[in-house]
């Protein structure tokens, strides 16, 4: 009957949904484990000495532009990110202050807060 079949469907639907995050985690772990050797191999070799760029052979020099652009972008992102964080906190504080002012008028400094209003 309808109620029982709904329950069965519900139970069946619940199990795969619970298993999904676990399956995703396992897949990710397997991917990382498989990819790690490749990633490790792709790392640049450790340098024992530091060679100034004018002594490096042409083919070893990295193209500088992506690094330069990344550097500038990071500075911009951090600076504007901070501004955004500040304005968000500012908005929260102003909202709370407005809320307090709405509930009661702002008390004067010379009012005794213990006096009955």
């Amino acid at each position, binding site marked *: 009957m309808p109620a029982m079949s709904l329950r069965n469907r519900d139970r069946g639907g619940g199990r795969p949904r619970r298993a999904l995050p676990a399956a995703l985690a396992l897949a990710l772990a397997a991917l990382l484990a498989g990819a790690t050797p490749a990633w490790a191999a792709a790392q*640049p070799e*450790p*340098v024992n*000495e*530091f*060679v*100034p*760029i*004018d002594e*490096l052979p042409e083919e*070893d*020099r*990295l193209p*500088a*532009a992506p*690094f*330069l652009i*990344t*550097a*500038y972008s*990071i*500075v911009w992102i*951090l*600076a504007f990110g*901070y*501004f955004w964080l*500040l304005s968000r*906190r*500012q908005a929260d*504080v*102003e909202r*709370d*202050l407005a809320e*307090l002012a709405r*509930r*009661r008028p*702002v*008390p004067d400094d010379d009012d005794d*807060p*213990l006096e009955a*209003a």
Partner: protein
Amino acid sequence: MTRMTGRWSIVRLAVAAVMFAVAPLLIAQAPYEATMGLVAKIVYFHVPVWFMMFLAIFVCGISSGIYLFRERPAADRLAVSAAELAVLFGAMGLTTGPLWARVSWGAWWVWDVRLTLALILEMTFVAYLLLRKYGGPGSDKLSAGLALFGMFNVPIVYVSVNVWRTLHPSTTVVPTLGASMAGPFWWCVLAFLALFLVMLEGRRRLADQEAELDRLRLAYDEEY
């Protein structure tokens, strides 16, 4: 309060405009650095950012001292703001530095004196922020002590890392600037200084407002 925000956003916009004007100016105009080529243009951001971190550390240290010995709450609010900026500009420096080092020296981290010093100072002021966040009541005084110690530590760490470094085979990453690059460089320093001052002022105002909010909440709690 809306007036304060309004004024602040105008200044902020002005600063952003200055910075926007700066970037293409230096990229286009400045000559290529002889040994390092294009990548040395990171120095126009990397070094001013480092200056700002230093400035933030000293503002934080000095206002922490004032808070500890004169017990002025405004000094504490300035100290927190400066500490956040020290961490922010430190993060900028610690990301642009390795990017430069990777191209110039082939390694992400070269134990350069200033980079290492920046890392240690960054950790000190991240510790400051952690202490303020998780230390509970009384952490304002404790973090003031930490900031004071951190400030006094700067020359000592510099000397110890410098001597330690000379025992290792590496050379300094920061070149000396040629005359033709000095103009855009100092322009950038001023632009970052303007940015720093705007951020400091904005953060300090936020701290003031949060303190006011706390004061009001306490006042209302007392009445009920």
